[in-house]
């Protein structure tokens, strides 16, 4: 590295710009979190102050716990997200393997067909999806959501995973074949473990949009027993608009799970994006 690109003034200006933008990015989250721990009076009197012994209060959280069924919502979101990711990864990896490993008639066409869904949002078909779910009795079940999210996630999963599966060495697979392993064993025992990093990338890409989606829970599963956390907090906040303590606490409780997931997976996510998996 040479000096032409290093200049103390520039460095300070760069940090200044980045710090400024970081503050803009974090400010609303920070305001919500600190105010959720304050009394109603303190929320309005000094919205930017940290809670102290005088203004500390958990009244909002108590309301949320008593009124909303947040544990049920959380459980629903968890089931939907985990099940959808499982099916996206399993079916996506199987299809990606078929496309990248075998030469057969229609291979290219099948790849293009599966890639269509990368650019076309599934929401366009909502009217017919709802009609189908009503006809099959799946409406207001978590299965409706799991099916939709699986279909939505598959195109990109197949695309990314088949890129990675092309890099798995042929010698390894052929060695397996000579040893008499079936194609299924080769896939599950030899190939899948090798593309695990790519699978993690696909999982992280899909996890956040599924967890945060409002459209399909609102339309396909708005019943009390099947509300996801996103829909549940939307409805809850809508009912308690004037109870600021409850609204701020509900928001904080909705932020927390995502934030924890992000802290756990952020390295994977950032590595996935920057490794060019989506280019």
């Amino acid at each position, binding site marked *: 590295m040479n000096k032409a690109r290093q200049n103390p003034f520039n460095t300070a200006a760069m940090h200044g710009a980045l710090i400024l933008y970081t503050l803009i990015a974090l400010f*609303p989250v920070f305001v919500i979190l600190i105010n959720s721990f304050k009394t109603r009076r303190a929320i*309005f009197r000094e919205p930017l102050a940290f809670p102290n012994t005088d203004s500390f209060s958990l009244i909002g959280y108590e309301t949320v716990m008593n009124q909303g069924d947040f544990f049920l919502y959380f459980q629903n979101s968890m089931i939907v997200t985990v099940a959808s990711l499982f099916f996206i990864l399993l079916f996506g990896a199987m*299809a990606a*393997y078929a496309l990248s490993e075998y030469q057969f008639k229609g291979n290219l066409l099948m790849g293009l*067909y599966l890639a269509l869904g990368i650019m076309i949002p599934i929401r366009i078909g909502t009217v017919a999806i709802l009609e189908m779910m009503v006809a099959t009795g799946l409406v207001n079940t978590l299965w409706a959501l799991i099916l939709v999210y699986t279909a939505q996630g598959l195109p990109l999963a197949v695309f990314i995973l088949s890129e990675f599966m092309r890099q798995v060495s042929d010698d390894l697979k052929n060695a397996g074949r000579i040893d008499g392993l079936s194609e299924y064993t080769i896939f599950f025992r030899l190939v899948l473990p090798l593309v695990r990093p790519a699978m993690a990338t696909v999982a992280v890409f899909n996890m956040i949009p599924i967890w945060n989606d409002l459209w399909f829970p609102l339309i396909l599963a708005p019943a009390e027993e099947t509300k996801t956390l996103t829909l549940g907090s939307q409805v809850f906040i809508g009912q308690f608009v004037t109870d600021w303590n409850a609204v701020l606490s509900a*928001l904080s409780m909705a932020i927390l799970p995502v934030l924890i997931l992000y802290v756990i997976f*952020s390295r994977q996510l950032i590595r996935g994006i920057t490794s060019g998996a989506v280019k």
Partner: protein
Amino acid sequence: MTRPRFRWHIVVFLAPAVLVYSAVMIFPLFNTLRLALYTEIDQNRVFVGLQNFQTLFFDPIWSEQFWNALGNNFWFFLIHMLVQNPIGIALAALLSHPRLRFAALYRSAIFIPTILSFVIVGFAWKLILSPIWGIAPSMLDAVGLKFLFAPWLGKEEYALTTLALISVWQFVGIPMMLIYAALLTIPEEILEAGEIDGITGTSAFWKIKLPLILPSIGIISILTFVGNFNAFDLIYAAQGALAGPDFSTDILGTFMYRTFFGFQLQLGDPHMGSAIAGAMFAIILLGVCIYLFGIQTRMRRYQL
């Protein structure tokens, strides 16, 4: 010579993905387009051809809402293109600077809004901009700009722009990350060659890096386009299905939701809803085609 044995395992590998994808995505997509050609008369489904589209585009009551939503949607997209993507590129350019300390920390922090749900983002900003709570006015007061404050989300002329800027705030992380990834792939030798010719600092960005990341900017533009033209959640979370005040924040997603699901006294109409979905499909397809055939193929790609 015997025919090669049919390879059943290929079918087994492909079947689950193809079945789920076809049944839950492709079939409903075409079925929705088909439903747009029908209407309901006395609880019977009747084929009416393109009449729904005619109603949507030319009937005074419908067309006013439709063109309003479409115009708002274009404005929403324009703000993203003019604000979100330049800020994203600028942040990426700063972050990719060699030997910048804390780069990973900035990167992770700036990406946080992107992972939050629209419900959180919508309500959080609604509270912050609320004149009742007064965070925004008192902060403006602190820098002597209090006269600038207005209840932005409640005024017809500002509400849509405010929501678009909130959405920009939320999603700036995506262009930032993609451009950052593209900037990392530029080889050091090219930049050093530029330095020998006296091209450093900002001019290195404009003359060397920017041309090299143009394909990524193209991808970001089309992702923004598709994302904006099926946006719904933020407007719904912040302003409700009526996209108030007085439909000034109505975009195609909220318009479709209202039409097909119904609201207050109006009954839902799946056929008109499908017609709107058809229009959205056409717009998105047009955008994707312009990108694929008009922009992507003509863009100069440099072999690095």
